[in-house]
């Protein structure tokens, strides 16, 4: 029988084997959106994100890795888009140099702008359209699958984030490719 304990007595600080800092690129809806007027889809682009996480060891080969991250904003034309995420992966160490992960992310996609007008083409004329006047946020849950290649205290991680994983019509995939720097929690207290 599966039981989940969240009581603080079940939690042991010593089981946090590693903390990590991440720097990577976020490939939103990679190859699934129209990027040119000839219907070509989007390719690789550098869209940095930062993250931090902690590896909580359950057994020798199994761990849970809660993480938080932020995809850097893009804001050239009045609308700023931010993506924040909280996630936790179940991590299985297949080899000393290879971890496999499965988990879920809570994605917060936030758009902010301060309103205003913009004149754009409409047929042979131009017409006024409006810049969004306020911040709005979309919340999504993704299913995440990933692999991490480890060398000493560094790691290279590839992860996929599946939106609408249980609805085939809407399903979309984002990817993240990141470099991780890991260090022991005791280093914090030195």
């Amino acid at each position, binding site marked *: 029988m599966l039981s*989940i304990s*969240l009581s*603080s007595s079940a*939690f042991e*600080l010593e089981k946090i084997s590693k903390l990590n800092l991440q*720097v990577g690129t976020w490939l939103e*809806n990679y190859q*699934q*959106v*129209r*990027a*040119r*007027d000839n*219907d070509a*889809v989007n390719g690789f*682009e*550098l*869209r*940095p994100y930062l993250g931090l996480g*902690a590896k909580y060891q359950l057994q020798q080969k199994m761990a*849970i890795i*809660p993480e938080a991250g932020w995809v*850097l904003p*893009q*804001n*050239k*034309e009045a*609308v700023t*888009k931010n993506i924040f995420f*909280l*996630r*936790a992966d179940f991590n299985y160490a297949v080899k000393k140099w290879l971890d496999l992960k499965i988990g*879920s992310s*809570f994605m917060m996609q936030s*758009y902010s702008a301060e309103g205003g007008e913009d004149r*754009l*083409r*409409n*047929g*042979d004329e131009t017409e006024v*359209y*409006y*810049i*969004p*006047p*306020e911040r*709005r946020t*979309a*919340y*999504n*849950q993704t299913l995440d699958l990933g692999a991490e290649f480890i060398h000493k205290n560094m790691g290279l991680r590839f992860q996929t984030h599946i*939106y*609408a994983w249980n609805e085939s*019509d*809407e*399903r979309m995939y984002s990817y993240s490719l990141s*470099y991780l*720097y890991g260090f022991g929690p005791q280093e*914090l*207290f030195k």
Partner: protein
Amino acid sequence: MKFLLICLFLYPLSVYSFRLNTNTAAAFGDKNIKIYVTSNSTCSEAGISKEDLLDLAVKGARDFWNKVPTSNINIERGGILQTSNNLFLTGALCASDSQTSCPEATSVPTSIDDIVIACNNNTTDNFKSSSYLALSAPVRVSNQTIKGSIVLINDSTNTSFDTLSYNERLSVLAHEIGHAVGIGHSNKNEALMYYANSDKLSKLSQDDIDAITYLYPNRLDGCGGFFGGTIGKDGDPPIKQNLLMSLLLGTFLGWILLIFTKFFTALTRSSRLFVLKKVNS
């Protein structure tokens, strides 16, 4: 690591340029929106039957707007709207923000719900040239809520709608439905909401996805009880969320909170020990 950090500050910023139809960012209050075609639309000049027009509009909505996972919009078939009001066919389209200058006797009726499509032949106010294939606007708006929108297909003798391929018609209908739900034009030529029509359009652009996500953002219910739910705007009922996923999320967030609590406690304890050692020495 240093190299990567330097790269962070050199990356090219992408452009987000979606615009809206109203200055209040109005959107339909109910995410389930229906499409109707008026029963008196013959669409003879446009070269399409009203049933085919309805099929095409529903397909446009399903193939494009309904597929965005970060948005909760759901546009579906309403049916044929029984009406004998000829103003749908001949009246001027009056957007919600200009109705004071629109005489009721010569304008397309605005007392409608959801999205209503009609074939219209008014070349004085609506279709001044053959380049106009269709027009659309929210016509019944209250504060930030769209109650009804009109889509007019150019059914005048100068229309070129009848010369369009199936895919072009599909993208025209999907574009106009985008307007009907509150999205304005985009200045990105790959976007469905770009002003010009395209026959090679099988997917939305990121700009279109961002626009529909902004107006109809997806929201989760409960978050495992951790946040107490994220209730929709204007008291929309929250979306039912998969129970297992919510439980997992709540557990994960619980772990995060516990870890940071423990760290904070440990940090406080170690700093206290440090102070005590100093005092003792």
